[in-house]
């Protein structure tokens, strides 16, 4: 295992959001972290990426080094992270935002250019970041993470497909698969279980702060388990997982 999480707990104030999670993954994989809202997915990946500012315990070992005790600079050399809601409180262009990858860790122009190509944001780079759509901003921030990321490193993404249209999702998913093929470990929080099924090699399923299940995608994403865990029925059509969405009014208004 390249990534080993051992007995990790994470607190938000007095509330224990993640409780003693032990799990691991080899390099060269895409791991989808799934679970209902408030199950502890984001808290767990933030702690793994070393960006949770509050109390935490346990250890996160990546290629032999403990990420929980490393300095920010050393961690930035091996882990790149994209937040659920990116914030850029300055009038930067998209290129300047991508260039932040080299704010502390030395990154060459080639790194930045490769990331721009991989995410297909060449036509956005001279535009103000604030003027981009939500999906475009998300792609630019992902390009920044890719520019920071060394092949073979750890990439942690918290719901990166938010606000992206289908074409953007397809492009980004392809880029993540290329990274995993090249030896990187991609840890990605996803709400879209069909996308998790199509993209991930392995799945970690969080429930109430604990790991409900982990393992190969086929083993974890069974229709029966998902139906009981998410309260929505699932079916496989031509090998693809999809929820059976049939909303109906159960509590009449008025």
């Amino acid at each position, binding site marked *: 295992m390249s990534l080993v999480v051992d007995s990790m707990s994470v607190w938000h104030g007095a509330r224990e959001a993640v409780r003693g999670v032990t799990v691991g993954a080899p390099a060269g994989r895409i791991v989808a972290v799934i679970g209902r809202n408030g199950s502890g997915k984001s808290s767990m990946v933030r702690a793994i990426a070393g*960006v949770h500012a509050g109390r935490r315990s346990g250890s996160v070992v990546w290629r032999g080094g403990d990420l929980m005790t490393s300095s920010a600079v050393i961690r930035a050399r091996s882990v790149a992270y994209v937040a659920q809601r990116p914030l850029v409180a300055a009038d930067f262009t998209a290129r300047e935002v991508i260039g932040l990858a080299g704010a502390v860790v030395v990154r060459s122009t080639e790194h930045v250019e490769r990331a721009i190509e991989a995410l297909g944001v060449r036509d956005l780079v001279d535009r103000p970041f604030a*003027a981009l759509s939500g999906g475009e901003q998300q792609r630019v921030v992902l390009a920044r993470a890719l520019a920071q990321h060394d092949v073979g490193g750890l990439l942690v993404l918290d719901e990166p497909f938010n606000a992206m249209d289908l074409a953007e999702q397809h492009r980004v998913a392809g880029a993540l698969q290329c990274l995993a093929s090249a030896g990187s470990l991609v840890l990605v929080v996803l709400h879209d279980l069909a996308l998790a099924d199509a993209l991930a090699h392995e799945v970690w399923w969080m429930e109430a702060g604990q790991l409900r299940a982990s393992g190969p995608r086929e083993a974890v994403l069974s229709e029966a388990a998902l139906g009981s865990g998410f309260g929505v029925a699932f079916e496989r059509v031509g090998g693809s997982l999809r929820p059976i969405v049939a909303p109906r009014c159960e509590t009449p208004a008025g």
Partner: protein
Amino acid sequence: MTIRRPRAASWLLIVAITAIAAIVRLMLGARGWSWPTPDIVDLRVGALVSAAVAGASLGLSGVLLQALLRNPLASPFVLGLSSGAGLAVSVAALAASWGAAWVIADGGLVAATIGSALALIVVVTAGRRHGAIDPVTLLLAGVVVASVAGALTILVQYLMPPSSRGDLMAWAMGRIPELPERVPLVVGAVLLVAIGWWSIARARWLDAACTADDEALSLGVDLPAVRWRLVVLSGALAGSSVVLCGPIAFVGFVAPHVARLMLGAGHRGLGVASPMLGAALLIAADALRLAVPLPGAGKLPVAVVTAILGGPIFLWVLRRHGGRGA
């Protein structure tokens, strides 16, 4: 919309603005336009250097504060740092008048730095809601700290011996000294160069600090350490400018905004351009008050001129950004 900033032209313009402001100020004296003859040239150069050091310190302090708080409205005056420094220097002067002369042996620099840093800590602490800095609450906290510090400064002035009261009152209204005291001027200049160098060397850290806390951490920036440094350094700059020229409004707010409009948001450029424009602004305000005396009232205090010029710009930025990220 794409952004392509003509950087060379912008730099030329900034240098030209600063040079023209300096030349105009050298040509102006208490009696209006006149050539700086040898008997008065020292006075004009003294005022020019004082305004340059104080204005540049305010311009740089504004850049650091706006990076610290991720808020385009932040500046030493708006957040109460100048008032805090003014109160601390007034208290030190009062203590000196009661016999503790050592308190103000350095010209009041240490007192001013402590006063401005304390004001910033109070404002940032009071400006937090649910663990995060709320821009509107922060501004209100700054207004309250500035008001209370201003009122206490007036109280201290009443407690001063009548012989020293006039000087303190003139300083508290903001004035550019023609014969500046050597220690505050030299220490202020050294602080400005040292902190300016740090700001340029660490410009990429400041760029990264404009992202969310978790993203900045993931980029390798040790945010808690950087933030403490920014509190101390911006406080020291605001304090040294207050010691030199008294509390001056809006220079630390306007200079970073003009620099950003001309060069973009990168801190490598802002770390140089904002101090230059801060110096140019304060020199120009001093020249303006000399060139346009108020009928019946003589020369205005320079802080009144900067407030009249800076206030509308502040309201424009407030309206444009609603107090949130730049």
